[in-house]
């Protein structure tokens, strides 16, 4: 359950929601690349599981394995409690939005949308009705007579989404479904999709690179890294208490400062003074990584319980209302989100509350402490 | 017609035909018509081979293997022996004898011999054509030859042909079909006229060391060396002749119609030149009908059809179609066309001497002919020694005999 979505849209799961799970999935490609390395995932039935991870970490491969388009090297997969490891893709009741759209080049947008219904033997009139409805939802109603080659990137992507949704499948796999849409449309589509998903209760696996999308959709969030699961939990939990420095860096772009702990002070290479930490980790680890989010760093010296230090600004970026200031502390780069413009090449004192600090050990594992 | 009308409906028999040869099949279509069926109770289905005699032979082969030989087939007269040797052809004698209304004496006796082996008649010729010489009078005149005095012997032929070339009247003096001439028809004729034969007397072995043959090959080789003679296959031969590039060809009398249509120059027909001191013998070509069925009822029906074809009606139809370029079995019909035969250089005494072509025994006959042809061509085209070539041919042929 997504704790952040507490609206009437969050209907109780339809009783027919199915669960999807993978156990010890390994996928090795013929050239030896191991794209998935012992992946075990349980997707909440009727919920949305968001997959996150750096480019090339195996997200698409995982979806393709679930769909049955790729055969896992070892491991098993079950859908609705049944082992489908050896079941044909077409019989798993899975629909997918492909990263590259994968439209039928010879069929019009309408033909593409209607195709899964034709395959399911839906009568013509019913088909037309449902195509019209989904096209309206996706705002492509004026384009139904065009072939994929005559559509823009975003339009193609929407046709691809429509083709997956129109079947109202038990399991929906979405591979960066909104990546080619503009921000406004993306937000709209996301909301429409969420409403539909909540109503129909299809178990969804969702890959996205958009953090806002991930956080707002995820009933469960899974971070993959080089074919392995780094962390799998709720969105809120993951954002608040990233289990590893990798997750922390990946989600929300946390600044990570590695150094050695010396008498309550974090020594960072290239920086003359250390950082005096307001709280220390429970165990006496020597090599530490300190994490703090750009938006948790505020200009000014802060209070006595805050961590405070000085950086040299290098570059600022306009983000809209705010600016992202890139600076460095010793040899380390870090980013700060500020509201006003700051001059480049000068020193800037920033502070962060003890509660906003995250500590990770030598191997990147979270240390209980400050932020908890 | 016969008196005994069949009790239960018409009997249908299959006759395999070389359907690309309209000269041969069209009269058959014409004669074996619905009226014939009504009259005799025999109906004929023509089975198309899609080609000429060669295609017919391929079809017979396939049908033989499949065990569904046609009731009868129209084949090249030269191939009769092959089917007799293989015991596929059925004799007509008892049918002929039983048919009281048929009078064998109305048939040209020399033609009747074509299908005779071991005293039985295995085939009846529908047409018989003979070799004649066609020559382009315009070329003759240009070369200073007298068209009214065509060559009659090989020596004269050689001289005339050389003169044509030397005077520049045409590219070649003579064309002589060898390579794809079934059973070396033209060659056989000239050799026979020179008193030779390609086979021994009991027709069991080839005699390629025959002096007449050797002489002919030497004669041809001489001309070939100087480019006087060329074009050894059917199409090139006639096409070169029609183009006016060749003065003289040995060709079938049955081709007279085609010559008349295709030659855009003045030409004449004369008896073909023979070896010096020889006597012209006509080894005939043409089409014969053989019967394969051994079922008496069907044999009877085949006989009805054959009799119609070789009788007066068929004879007339063939002579009509071929413009007199052939002889038919019905002597009376031949007489009525005698004038045209004369124009085709056929004298009455020739008819009496009509002889069938020789054929090698057994199934390898075609291969032996091919071997012989290739050896002779090797002489003409690559200058191989004639005697060696013929000896090689004989050596290669021997193992192929049954």
């Amino acid at each position, binding site marked *: 359950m997504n704790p952040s979505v507490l609206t009437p849209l969050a209907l109780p799961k339809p009783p027919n929601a199915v669960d999807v799970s993978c156990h010890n999935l390994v996928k090795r490609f013929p050239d030896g690349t191991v794209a998935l390395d012992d992946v075990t995932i349980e997707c909440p039935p009727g919920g949305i599981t968001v997959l996150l991870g750096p480019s090339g970490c195996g997200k698409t491969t995982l979806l393709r394995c679930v769909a049955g388009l790729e055969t896992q090297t070892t491991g098993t997969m079950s859908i609705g409690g049944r082992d489908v490891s050896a*079941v044909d893709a077409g019989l798993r009741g899975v629909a997918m939005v492909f990263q590259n759209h994968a439209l039928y080049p010879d069929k019009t947008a309408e033909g593409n949308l209607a195709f899964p219904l034709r395959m399911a033997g839906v009568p013509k009139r019913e088909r037309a009705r449902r195509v019209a409805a989904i096209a309206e939802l996706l705002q492509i109603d004026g384009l139904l007579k065009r072939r994929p080659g005559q559509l823009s990137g975003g339009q193609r992507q929407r046709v691809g989404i429509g083709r997956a949704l129109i079947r109202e499948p038990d399991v929906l796999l979405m591979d960066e479904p909104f990546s080619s849409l503009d921000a406004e449309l993306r937000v709209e589509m996301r909301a429409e999709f969420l409403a539909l998903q909540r109503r129909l209760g299809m178990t969804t696996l969702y890959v996205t690179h958009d953090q806002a999308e991930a956080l707002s959709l995820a009933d469960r969030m899974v971070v993959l890294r080089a074919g392995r699961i780094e962390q799998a939990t709720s969105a809120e939990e993951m954002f608040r208490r990233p289990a590893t420095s990798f997750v922390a860096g990946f989600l929300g772009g946390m600044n990570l400062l590695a150094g050695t702990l010396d008498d309550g002070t974090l020594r960072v290479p290239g920086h003359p003074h250390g950082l005096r930490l307001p709280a220390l980790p429970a165990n006496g680890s020597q090599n530490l990584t300190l994490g703090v989010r750009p938006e948790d760093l505020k200009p000014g010296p802060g209070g006595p319980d805050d961590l405070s230090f000085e950086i040299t600004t290098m570059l600022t970026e306009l983000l809209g209302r705010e600016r992202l200031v890139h600076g460095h502390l010793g040899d380390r780069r870090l980013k700060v989100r500020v509201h006003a413009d700051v001059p480049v090449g000068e020193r800037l004192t920033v502070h962060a509350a003890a509660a906003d600090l995250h500590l990770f050990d030598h191997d990147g594992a979270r240390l209980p402490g400050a932020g908890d | 017609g016969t008196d005994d009308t069949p009790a239960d409906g018409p009997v249908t028999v299959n006759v395999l035909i070389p359907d690309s040869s309209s000269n041969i099949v069209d009269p058959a279509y014409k004669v074996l018509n619905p009226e014939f069926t009504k009259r005799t109770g025999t109906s004929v289905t023509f089975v198309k081979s899609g080609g000429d005699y060669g295609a017919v032979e391929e079809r017979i082969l396939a049908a033989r293997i499949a065990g569904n030989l046609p009731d009868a087939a129209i084949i090249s007269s030269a191939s009769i022996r092959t089917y007799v040797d293989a015991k596929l052809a059925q004799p007509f004698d008892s049918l002929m004898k039983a048919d009281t209304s048929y009078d064998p004496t109305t048939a040209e006796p020399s033609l009747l011999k074509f299908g005779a082996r071991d005293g039985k008649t295995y085939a009846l010729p529908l047409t018989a054509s003979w070799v004649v010489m066609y020559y382009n009078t315009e070329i003759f005149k240009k070369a200073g030859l007298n068209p009214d005095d065509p060559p009659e012997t090989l020596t004269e032929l050689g001289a005339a042909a050389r003169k044509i070339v030397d005077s520049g009247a045409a590219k070649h003096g003579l064309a002589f079909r060898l390579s794809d001439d079934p059973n070396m028809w033209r060659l056989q004729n000239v050799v026979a006229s020179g008193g030779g034969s390609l086979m021994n007397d009991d027709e069991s072995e080839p005699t390629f060391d025959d002096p007449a043959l050797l002489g002919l090959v030497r004669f041809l080789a001489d001309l070939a060396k100087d480019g006087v003679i060329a074009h050894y296959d059917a199409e090139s031969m006639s096409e070169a002749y029609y183009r006016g590039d060749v003065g003289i060809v040995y060709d079938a009398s049955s081709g007279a119609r085609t010559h008349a249509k295709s030659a855009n120059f003045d030409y004449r027909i004369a008896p073909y030149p023979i070896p010096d001191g020889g006597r012209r013998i006509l080894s005939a070509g043409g089409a014969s009908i053989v019967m394969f069925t051994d079922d008496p009822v069907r044999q009877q029906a085949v006989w009805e059809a054959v009799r119609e074809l070789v009788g007066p009606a068929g004879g007339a139809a063939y002579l009509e179609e071929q413009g007199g370029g052939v002889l038919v079995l019905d002597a009376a019909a031949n007489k009525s066309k005698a004038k045209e035969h004369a124009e085709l250089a056929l004298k009455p005494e020739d008819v009496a001497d009509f002889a069938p072509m020789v054929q090698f025994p057994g199934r390898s006959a075609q291969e032996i002919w091919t071997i012989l042809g290739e050896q002779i061509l090797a002489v003409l085209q690559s200058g191989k020694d004639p005697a060696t070539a013929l000896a090689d041919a004989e050596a290669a042929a021997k193992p192929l005999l049954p």
Partner: protein
Amino acid sequence: MNSLHTRLPRPHIGLRPPPSALLIPAYTLLFLLIVGPVLVVVTLSLFDYDPLLGAAGFVGMDNFARVLPSDDFRTALVNTAVYMLLTVPVTLTASLLVALGIHSVRFGAALWRSVYFLPVAATLAAMAVAWRWLFYADSGLIDATIGQVLGLRDWLHSTTLALPAVSVVGTWENMGFAIVMFLAGLSAVPPHVMEAARLDGAGPWNRFWHVTWPALGPATVFTLIICTRNALKVFDQVQVMTKGGPINSSTTLSYLLWERGIRFLDIGGGSVITLMLLALILGVTVIQLSAVGRRWERAGTR
């Protein structure tokens, strides 16, 4: 959104017949129509079978011992190889050029397609006559043009030029086929990759070499193998143009097998030649596939 409420029937999670079931109709027929009869022919190579007498006797390898060392066979083998070398490279290159030309023009492509298609459609019997006239000594088009330049004349009646003459006709016949294949293959060239190549500064040659040629891979492999097969089993062209002559100089294996097996009624000998021909074509196909086939095919596989 409300209109999306009826749910589709759920798919049954279960097993389907394997995709290879789709091979059944085609392969059943292939076995019935081709493999079976071929096996019969193979068996016949061990027999001395007189089709007219209907007598057959097992002779073991005698037919092989008789046919394989013969001059005829050796000549036919060499002729077949020469014919292949004379036709296949020319056919493929010329057809590819023509297809690229037709594909590149903005106007008149339909006209050119038709022009180059005509030879494919025409009946060989009639075309043979026309070709004979083109090859006619001295005054035929070929002697009058190429012949003048190269000093060659009367191709069809020359023991050295008859085979090249037949290969001219074979090339001409197969070009129409190859052009049609290449034209179809050209429709599979991904247009956006072509655009990328243009922007990458690739000129026409490089665009061909780096985009078109790889994409044509499967079509090229197909055309190469079919053209080679057509060349190795050439029969019709030989029969209508030269009947294997003069003096066997244009007899190919396929012609020899027809001559032996059908015309000379030597079924056993014909079967041996058939076997040799099949082995030859199969061998050449294997070589082609392993030399270039796999590579070219993969280049165009998506």
